[in-house]
C-alpha cells in the first residue's frame, strides 16, 4: 500500500480481513495531506453522518455538521489505530519497478519486494497552474492552494482568484470577508445548493443513487473524471456558496482566464454560457432527485421541490485587467490538482500523465489504484466512497495473488 490516507487505510482493512500480508508506506504521517496541504478554515464538504470508513463512523453530537481539518485528521488516525494498520510513517516511495514476479519498491528507508502494489497516494498531489502564469508580472504574488493558509498571510490589496470549484469559491469568499477587493475568474463549474428540500444536497446524491453510479455506466467517463469539485462549503450555518452568493458579497466575476498579453490578463467573453451550462446541469440533477423522491414515496418526508434563481449575469463583465496597475496584488490559482505518478517507473500513464486503469485495475498485473476521481463510482474520491471501491479492488488483488501462487 502506498499512502496512509483514508484510501490506503481502507484497503489495509480489507487486506487484513483476507489475511494478506502487507505494509502501508507513508511519506509523512497518517492523513498527511489533510495535515499539510489544506488551508486553515477548510472543512469537509460532506456532512459528518456521511463520514464512514469500513467499520468506523462518526459518532459525535453533530451529524449534520462538517468536520474541520483537525477533526478529519483525528477521524482517520482513529481508524488507523482501530484497524491496526501496519503503517510505516516517514517512508517516501521514490520508485516502483516491475520484476519477474511482482514489484521492486525503492523507499527513503530501503528496498521492498512485493507481489502487488496499491497506489493510494491521493488525487491532489500537485496544484495545476496554467502555463501563462509565467507571463504574469513579477510584482504580483502568485499562490496555489498549497501555499495558502488564510487571508492574513496575503499582501493587502486586490486578489484575483482563478477557478470556481469548491476551492475557488471558498477562498474568494474568505478573502472578500478579509476586506480585500476580490475578482473571481470563472470557467466551467458545478453549481449546487447546500440544502435541497430541507436536506443536505449530498444526502440526495447518496440516497438517490447518483453517487453509486458505476464507472462503466457513466456516459462520458473521461469528462466525469475531469469534473471540477462542486461549489460547496461546509459551515455550521449550512449555507449555499454559489456565484450569486459571491456576487452579493461584492466579488466581481470575470470569464475564464485565457491568456496574458503585454502584462494584461485577458478573460473569455463566454461567461454567460458557463453560467447557463451550470444552471441547466443543476436543474437536471434536481429533476433527477425529484423523480427519485416521487418514485420512492419520499415526497412527504422532505420539503416541496424548489428551484433556484439563475446565475445573475453582470451588466458587463471585464475581459481584461492590467496586472501592472497595482489593482491586483495577489493571484490565487484554484485551477485544480492532479496526482503525482513520477515515481512509477513503468509505462502505465498516458501522454498527459494520467494513470491508465479500469476501475482501479492497472494494466500491469498486480498493480492497483484507489482514491482517484470516479475510480469505480461517482463517489470514489469522497471519504465514504472508498469502502466499496477498496473492497472490490482488494478482492481483485486477492484473486490475482491466488492465481499466481
Amino acid at each position, binding site marked *: 500500500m502506498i499512502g496512509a490516507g483514508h484510501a490506503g487505510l481502507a484497503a489495509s482493512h480489507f487486506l487484513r480481513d483476507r489475511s494478506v500480508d502487507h505494509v502501508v508506506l507513508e511519506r509523512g504521517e497518517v492523513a498527511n495531506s489533510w495535515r499539510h496541504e489544506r488551508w486553515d478554515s477548510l472543512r469537509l464538504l460532506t456532512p459528518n453522518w456521511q463520514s464512514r470508513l469500513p467499520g468506523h463512523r462518526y459518532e459525535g453530537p453533530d451529524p449534520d455538521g462538517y468536520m474541520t481539518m483537525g477533526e478529519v485528521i483525528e477521524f482517520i488516525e482513529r481508524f488507523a489505530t482501530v484497524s491496526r494498520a501496519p503503517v510505516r510513517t516517514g517512508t517516501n516511495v521514490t520508485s516502483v519497478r516491475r520484476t519477474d514476479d511482482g514489484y521492486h519498491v525503492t523507499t527513503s528507508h530501503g528496498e521492498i519486494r512485493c507481489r502487488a502494489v496499491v497506489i493510494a497516494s491521493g488525487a491532489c498531489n500537485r496544484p495545476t497552474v496554467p502555463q501563462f502564469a509565467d507571463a504574469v508580472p513579477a510584482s504580483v504574488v502568485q499562490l496555489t492552494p498549497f501555499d495558502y493558509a488564510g487571508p492574513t498571510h496575503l499582501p493587502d490589496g486586490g486578489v484575483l482568484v482563478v477557478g470556481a470549484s469548491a476551492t475557488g469559491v471558498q477562498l474568494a469568499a474568505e478573502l472578500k470577508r478579509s476586506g480585500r477587493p476580490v475578482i473571481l475568474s470563472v470557467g466551467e463549474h458545478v453549481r449546487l445548493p447546500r440544502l435541497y428540500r430541507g436536506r443536505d444536497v449530498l444526502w440526495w446524491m447518496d440516497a438517490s443513487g447518483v453517487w453509486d453510479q458505476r464507472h462503466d455506466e457513466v456516459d462520458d467517463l473521461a469528462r466525469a473524471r475531469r469534473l471540477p469539485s462542486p461549489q460547496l462549503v461546509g459551515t455550521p450555518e449550512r449555507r449555499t456558496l454559489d456565484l450569486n452568493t459571491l456576487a452579493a458579497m461584492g466579488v466581481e466575476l470575470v470569464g475564464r482566464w485565457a491568456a496574458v498579453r503585454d502584462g494584461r490578463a485577458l478573460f*473569455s467573453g*463566454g461567461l454567460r454560457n458557463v453560467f447557463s451550462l451550470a444552471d*441547466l446541469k443543476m436543474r437536471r440533477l434536481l429533476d433527477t432527485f425529484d423523480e427519485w423522491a416521487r418514485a420512492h414515496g419520499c415526497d412527504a418526508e422532505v420539503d416541496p421541490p424548489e428551484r433556484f434563481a439563475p446565475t445573475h449575469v453582470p451588466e458587463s463583465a471585464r475581459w481584461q485587467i492590467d496586472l501592472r496597475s497595482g489593482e491586483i496584488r495577489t493571484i490565487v490559482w484554484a485551477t485544480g490538482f492532479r496526482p503525482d505518478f513520477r515515481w512509477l517507473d513503468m509505462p502505465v500513464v498516458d501522454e498527459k500523465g494520467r494513470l491508465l486503469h479500469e476501475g482501479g485495475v492497472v494494466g500491469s498485473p498486480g498493480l492497483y489504484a484507489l482514491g482517484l476521481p470516479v475510480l469505480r463510482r461517482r463517489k470514489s474520491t469522497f471519504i465514504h466512497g472508498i469502502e466499496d471501491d477498496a473492497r472490490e479492488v482488494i478482492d481483485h488483488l486477492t484473486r490475482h495473488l491466488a492465481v499466481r501462487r
Partner: protein
Amino acid sequence: MTTIDNGVNVQALLDAREVLKGAPEAAQFTWRASSRWQNGVHSTTTIQNFFGLGQEQSHKSETVFTADHPEVFAAEDNGITPIEYLLVGLASCLTAGVASVAQNRGIQLRSVESTVEGNHDIRGILGADSDVRNGFNDIKVTFTIDADASQQDIEALVAQSQKRSAVFDALTNPTNVTVEVA
C-alpha cells in the same frame, strides 16, 4: 421508435473523434483565404483549398466573398462590411452546432432561426476616441427553435453548441494574430 433526422451524420463525427484521439497530427487543419483589393474599400476574398487529415483538401467549388462598406461610410456598398462576416461565421457555426447536438441527443428539429446583433462604436476605428475599442462591444444571438423537446432541453442544446463552437471560441477568447508583409 421513430428515428430522428436533422441531416447530420453524427456517427461519422463520433468515429472521427475516436480516431483523432490517437492521431493528433491528423487533427491539424489550416483554413485559408486569399484576398484581393478591388478599389476603394472594396475587396474580394476567395476560398477553396484547405489542409487537414494530413493532406491538401479542397471544397467542391471556389467561393468568392465581396466586402465593402455601406454608403453611410461614403463607400459603394458592393458587399457586406468585414465585421459583418464575423456575424455570418458566428450564426452559421452555432446553428451547425445546434443541429449536431440535437442529432446526437435524439431531438428532431423543425426550424432553427437566429438573429445576431453586434454592437459597434465606430469612434474606435475612426480614431475619434482612444478609449473606444475597434471591434464589437458585445454581440447578442437570439435563437428561435421549434423542436420535439422541452424548453430546458432546447436551452441545453444552445448552451452545448456554444461550448463546442469554433467561432464562439475565436470571438470570446484572444487569439494570436501575425500580419506580415511578404
